[in-house]
């Protein structure tokens, strides 16, 4: 194996720039696409000004909730500046949260808590207002419920008395814990599931795995190029058979790509705060094993690089279509579930390992290795 590594190294030295380009393409490409998409999403958000006359915990919670709306770009500023920006149409609408907000909520009063401003070009004033009103409504309802629970407890003569804050805190906690309607994409264990605000963004791992699949296939073109060179005739007079040489090299490509997979996981974790656990290297190992073996088998089938590239591209295109629901959740309906199940990347996209496809590829490779040679080269 050392000898095969040394011979491959001679090629890699010559192809260093090209090799590096292909190895870095998935990571750079996926970050670029992700950033561009996020930038585009930012551009399409409605700019809203918030004037906070009160900074009580309840007021800040409301601000937090509004800020995390995927369609709003919220800027906190003073009233004069906000109205000026509204006047020159830099803001769609402005909302002023008046002082005494928390106290009014605690008292169950939901009138005149906020003031909204809009211009003649405001397009999102009404839906934003409705959203903010619903958030305020939620808080007042919670407050009312707290008073009701307190009243019931008092009427029942319970010894243990709960404060308003305790009831509201418990209500908030239960809402968070039992968020049954929330379904999130998760690359790795449930604990690492994405935050709700990230749900509508492109999934970085899904973009990466498609680019990486394409690169893993394309990098196997050495098999075709070396077949064309006619050098294989020499392997009959060497220590290694041509098949051993091919397999040894495929193994080297596997390890090279796997090292880059691990680098990608670390970079995504550091730059994009994606999850990284002890399970990550295992998932990536299984993925790379599948991609390398599939690319290897595909390359063995072709004599011309162009046909190989075209077929590889078509295969990745099919995978992209089949992975659509993971790239953008909701892109496919449940009727296409059978189609999605055929996608060998589906398990990876859901944080799991595909055992059957790599096993099938390895079986085919074993069959190829031990099959009767057509020629005795």
């Amino acid at each position, binding site marked *: 194996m050392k000898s095969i590594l040394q011979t491959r190294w001679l090629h890699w030295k010559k192809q260093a720039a090209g090799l590096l380009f292909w190895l870095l393409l998935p990571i750079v490409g996926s970050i670029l696409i992700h950033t561009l998409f996020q930038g585009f999403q930012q551009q399409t958000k409605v700019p809203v000004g918030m004037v906070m006359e009160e900074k009580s915990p309840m007021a800040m919670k409301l601000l937090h909730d509004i800020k995390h709306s995927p369609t709003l770009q919220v800027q906190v500023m003073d009233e004069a500046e906000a109205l000026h920006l509204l006047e020159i149409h830099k803001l769609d609408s402005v909302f002023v949260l008046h002082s005494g907000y928390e106290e009014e909520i605690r008292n169950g009063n939901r009138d005149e808590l906020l003031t909204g401003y809009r211009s003649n070009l405001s397009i999102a004033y009404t839906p934003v207002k409705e959203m903010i009103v619903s958030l305020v409504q939620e808080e007042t309802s919670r407050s009312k419920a707290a008073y009701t629970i307190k009243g019931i407890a008092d009427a029942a003569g319970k010894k243990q008395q709960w404060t308003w804050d305790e009831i509201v805190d418990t209500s908030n906690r239960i809402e968070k814990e039992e968020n049954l309607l929330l379904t999130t994409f998760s690359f790795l264990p449930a604990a690492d599931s994405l935050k709700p605000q990230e749900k509508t963004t492109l999934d970085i791992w899904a973009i990466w795995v498609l680019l990486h699949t394409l690169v893993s296939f394309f990098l196997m073109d050495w098999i075709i190029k070396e077949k064309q060179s006619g050098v294989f005739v020499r392997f009959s*007079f060497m220590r290694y058979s041509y098949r051993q040489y091919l397999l040894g090299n495929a193994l080297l490509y596997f390890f090279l790509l796997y090292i880059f997979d691990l680098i990608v996981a670390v970079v995504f974790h550091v730059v994009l705060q994606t999850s990284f656990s002890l399970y990550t290297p295992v998932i990536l190992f299984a993925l790379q094993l599948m991609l390398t073996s599939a690319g290897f088998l595909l390359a063995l089938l072709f004599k011309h690089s162009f046909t190989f590239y075209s077929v590889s591209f078509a295969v990745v295109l099919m995978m992209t279509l089949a992975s659509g629901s993971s790239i953008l959740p909701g892109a496919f309906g449940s009727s296409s579930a059978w189609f999605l199940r055929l996608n060998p990347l589906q398990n990876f996209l859901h944080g799991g390992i595909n055992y059957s496809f790599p096993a099938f590829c390895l079986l085919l490779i074993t069959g190829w290795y031990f099959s009767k040679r057509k020629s005795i080269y």
Partner: protein
Amino acid sequence: MLQLEGITKHYGKKTILHDISFSLQAGEIVGLVGENGAGKSTLLKIIATLDKPSAGKLQFGEIDMLKNRKSARQYIGFVPQDIALWEELSVKDNMRFFEKLSWKHLNEKQLQQICLDMKLEKWLEPVKTLSGGMKRKLNMAISLIHDPTILLLDEPTVGIDLKSRIEIGSFLTKLAKEKGKMIIYTSHDMDEIKQLCDRIICIGSDSFYSKVLSRANKNIVVMH
């Protein structure tokens, strides 16, 4: 001694080689001639154990070459008709590449010496920039890395200049006479064959080659 006995090869109903028998001693150069399609390359491939004969025996010393292909191949150096090199790598890297996979390990100096013996001095040049003659020399040099006893050359001088032909010819003569290698050589160049080979074997029914070669003071055998 390399011995061929009754080597016959059929492709379907067509007989390419029929009952070819000859032997080769250490230090001897044998030329294989014949018209295109006569079976020279097929015979060379059979001797190289790259093709199986339909009938016959192939023996090298104690080794039955048809039964023990793997061990027989350690003694064979095969120079293919087509250039089998890594075009983007240098002469040095080509030699190093094949040395790493070879039965025998040589250091860089020894590898370079093989090239120098063949008057291939452009050690660091990429193969793609070499002339046809230089490429042919490297094609041959690689086949010599594991120091084979039998050297099989399939038209090694095709399409190259006279200077390179002479250099290759004198190198092969030196290899046979000084190092005792057995060399089998195919070519269409009758002058080269007459000059280089101790013995000439005409393959095929065409008597043209035997007539052309008859004036040469050589041992000529005609086989069908």
